[in-house]
């Protein structure tokens, strides 16, 4: 009796495909055409000089910018040195272990939050207001506790700190509450330097960073086809200092990108390819993650929708392109256009998390966003964690073998019997069947007895429970003081800038 199958293919997970390889190639080569024939505008002289030295054509040089056209061979050359695998590992816990590992390459998948929303929903009053330091720390604490959140971004701008230096304070707030890998933002190059210094302190030195960085940097060129001075300077700094860069445009179909989804992907890819080439010119092997937030303008309200089906579809399609290129991908999901955490937020997140999980971007960000990315919601974060867990159950697929097909069990139980008492059930029910405390499955009478709580109320209770749970501080007082000092020094350097300090709260 042969027990092992031969010449037999198994789907280990469900598979989803938006584009064929031919279609991916059509988009890729179109992007090469745009990069070499239309070019991109670069608002940084160091940037266009570097491109020029590397072989690019530089035209229409103005005081602040130049048009850069890159022949396709430059892309081929850059891709040869571009890392196909990037690791980001979180900060050490009490035992000095860095346990949250993101190993970004073709088929791995990690979920994380979005960043830098001006507003947040207060966890207790549930009213929308400007985000503060404490909010970021609270949201990081939630992320630390939620098992399906793998990395964190500052779900709010700390607007009770100085505007010119808030990035350091945000980073401090995050370090206070989570050891998970972080994708930081930086106000400017100075803010990036400060945060890198903080990371060195937190890790215990530059050598530890070299083993694996504990953060990546979010860096956003402006669509269509423009790369600002800040963005270029950050890119070059990251290349020099082994910081993984998320080089991610946010094109909007019909407004800042062609109206067609394929056209938008061509443009987005052109924008990212420029970043890839420039980074490899500066330092071969420089770690770049591409992707972005892509959606279509809502032509009725003129907003940038974060919960649209086009967003889900573009994210999925673009991920396939990056997988084909073997560049780590920065996808989008878990976000909504709803103005509060309501049924719409849940519906949009359910579908866009499903598509993201089925396609599998390496870093899937923007969990916890509502209101078109302008507001963060702790409820949305908690709910998304549960939705991710649901989709992971689906990702486990349906294994087919003698054991799972259970023909012998069926024969034993026979017509009219039941499987509840069978060993086959007893041994598997906890792994086969997904359950969650947030999802109610009581019969009506029991649900009534337990207070008729709806999902939003249960999410609220779970969120408060996590926030109020005792947790040992992640930072020793001395470490906290050291990190805080960098923030304060930054504030001191900026203290004369009017309107900058305490602008909002």
């Amino acid at each position, binding site marked *: 009796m042969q027990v092992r199958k031969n010449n037999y*293919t*198994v*789907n280990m997970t*469900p598979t989803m*495909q*938006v584009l064929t*390889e*031919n279609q991916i190639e*059509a*988009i890729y080569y179109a992007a090469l055409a745009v990069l070499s024939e*239309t070019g991109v*505008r670069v608002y940084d002289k160091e940037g266009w000089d570097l491109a020029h030295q590397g072989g690019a054509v530089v035209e229409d040089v103005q005081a602040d910018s130049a048009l850069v056209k890159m022949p396709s061979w430059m892309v081929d050359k850059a891709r040869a040195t571009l890392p196909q695998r990037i690791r980001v590992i979180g900060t050490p816990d009490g035992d000095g272990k860095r346990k949250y590992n993101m190993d970004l390459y073709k088929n791995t998948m990690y979920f994380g939050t979005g960043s830098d929303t001006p507003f947040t929903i207060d966890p207790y009053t549930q009213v929308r207001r400007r985000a503060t330091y404490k909010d970021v720390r609270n949201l990081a604490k939630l992320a630390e506790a939620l098992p399906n959140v793998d990395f964190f971004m500052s779900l709010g701008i700390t607007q009770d700190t100085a505007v010119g230096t808030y990035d350091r304070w945000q980073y401090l707030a995050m370090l206070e509450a989570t050891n998970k890998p972080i994708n930081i933002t930086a106000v400017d190059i100075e803010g990036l330097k400060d945060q890198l210094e903080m990371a060195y302190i937190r890790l215990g030195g530059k050598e530890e960073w070299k083993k694996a960085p504990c953060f990546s940097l979010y860096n956003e060129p*402006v669509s*269509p*086809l*423009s790369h600002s001075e800040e963005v270029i300077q950050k890119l070059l700094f990251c290349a020099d200092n082994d910081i993984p860069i998320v080089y991610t445009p946010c094109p909007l179909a*019909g*407004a*800042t990108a*062609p*109206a*067609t*989804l*394929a*056209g938008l992907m*061509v*443009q987005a890819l052109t924008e990212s390819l420029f970043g890839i080439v420039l980074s490899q010119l500066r330092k071969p092997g420089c770690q770049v993650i591409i992707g972005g937030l892509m959606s279509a303008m*809502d*032509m009725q309200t003129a907003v940038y929708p974060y919960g649209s089906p*086009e967003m889900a579809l573009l994210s999925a399609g673009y991920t396939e392109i990056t997988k084909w290129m073997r560049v780590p991908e920065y996808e989008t999901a878990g976000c909504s*256009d709803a*103005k*509060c955490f*309501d*049924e719409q937020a*849940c*519906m949009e997140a*359910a*579908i866009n998390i499903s598509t993201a999980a089925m396609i599998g971007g390496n870093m899937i960000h923007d969990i916890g966003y509502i209101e078109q990315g302008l507001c963060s919601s702790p409820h949305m974060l908690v709910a998304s964690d549960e939705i991710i867990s649901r989709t992971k159950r*689906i990702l486990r697929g349906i294994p*087919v073998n003698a054991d799972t097909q*259970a*023909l012998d*069990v*069926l024969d034993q139980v026979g*017509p009219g019997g039941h*499987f*509840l008492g069978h060993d*086959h*059930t007893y041994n598997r029910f906890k792994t*086969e*069947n*997904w*359950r969650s405390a947030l999802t109610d*499955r009581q*019969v*009506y009478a029991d*649900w009534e007895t337990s207070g008729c709580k*709806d*999902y939003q109320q249960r999410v609220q209770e779970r969120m408060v429970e996590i926030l109020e749970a005792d947790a040992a501080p992640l930072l020793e007082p001395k470490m906290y003081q050291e990190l805080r000092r960098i923030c304060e020094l930054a504030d001191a350097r900026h203290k004369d800038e009017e309107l900058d300090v305490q602008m909002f709260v």
Partner: protein
Amino acid sequence: MRTNYVANAGVRFNVFSQDQLEEMFNGVLHLLMYTGLDVKHEEARDILAKAGAWVDGERVRLPSYMVKDALRKAPRSFTLWARDGNPKHNIHIGPGRAHFGPGPTCTHFIDPETLERRPYTKADVPLVARLVDALPNIDFCESLGTVGDVHFDLGALYEFAGMFPNTSKPIVAWSYDKYDSAGIHEIAVAEAGGQRAFEQRPNYVHYCEPLSPLVSTFEAIDKLIFAATHRVPLVFTPCPIAGGTAPITGAGIITMGAAESWMGLTLAQTLQPGLPFFMGGVFSAMDMNTMILAYGAPELPLYMAGLTELAHYAGLPLWQTGGCTDSKTFDGQAMIEGAMSVFFSALTSGDLCHDVGYTESAMTGSLFQLCAMDEAIGYSRRIIRGIEVDDDTLAVDVINKVGPNNHYLRQPHTRKYYKSEYFYPKLLDRQDFENWESSGSLTMKQRTVARVRDVLATHKPSQVKPETMQVIEKVLAEAEDRVKDKK
């Protein structure tokens, strides 16, 4: 000009590989041949025995050639027709097409006025049918409830009588027994213009449900025989519960449920070769604490997707499931569960996806859930249309024309595509915060309630022929007469 080029028309999705499907298929044949089913209908056993089945008491085992023969006879593509000939309401069953509709037999209903949960009544049937008729992404009709305020034997008949004049979308008709079936058929045939006309353009589908594990009940088979002999397209849909009435594993429940369907298929094709036949139904897991069949579990979309692939591999259309929830109310859970199941259902192109609008694990029907799911279906349909890639959509020329740091709002290219490329929601709100606030800070629940009430107040479905109305009255009167002595 491109050569040697393959494109996806829409998004592709697979749970099983071809090898796995072949193995699943053969597992079903094995089960039917060696374990078999109990068929609790003597006439059916005789028919099957004559056709080659091995009958041993109630147990019926089918040699594989019989099942394969039945599969070959059953059509993969056919049309379900709108009773009024409205081409927009016809359903073309075939590869790559997913259609959606409500489910039957909930005991309770969310009152559209008070929003309270209460028993389902006769007066609710036309409301469901009218909403179905109006919603753009709902394609067929079921009643979302069991009529509780008529004689207990006549619920199904009143359901059909209430739905038929209130929507011209094809109806999937549930019934208690073959007497109901006959009454329902008489109404449908009257509108079609005779049995022959009905056979050519069937305007409803008959629904039967065998019992898991592995039992073909008397009623299910009796109704199947009626449908087959009258050439009514048939849904034969078991409702196995993984870990309860089916093996706990996905491959096990699908194998068993398919065997239950194919017993019905074999009988139906023996009686009426070529009868349109949907295998089905609701495959999900038991919640091992509350013991409910979990209509919102992630196992449901997963198992249904696997089942769909098996059905299509075998060449049959599928009676899919989605848009349903275990939630007791219109909340985030209801949306997450409903949206995920319709999304996966759309991805797999399960041919008729039912139970849209179920809440409370199929105990309560909700127009609001139905209306919200209409939006989720539209949303999902946009995604599964995929991304078109050709020279015009790649837009290299347009990008070149616009160049860096400009915009596309005034481009003819934008004007050409902005309506067809994007989904425009009806319930999902995309205003900015200030506008949303000044328009009343409405949640999706409030907007959904408003939309349902608006549709119910304004939508007018096409009318049935006057003669049909007379037949409906006659059928109901005869039925009342039949049961008047039964308490």
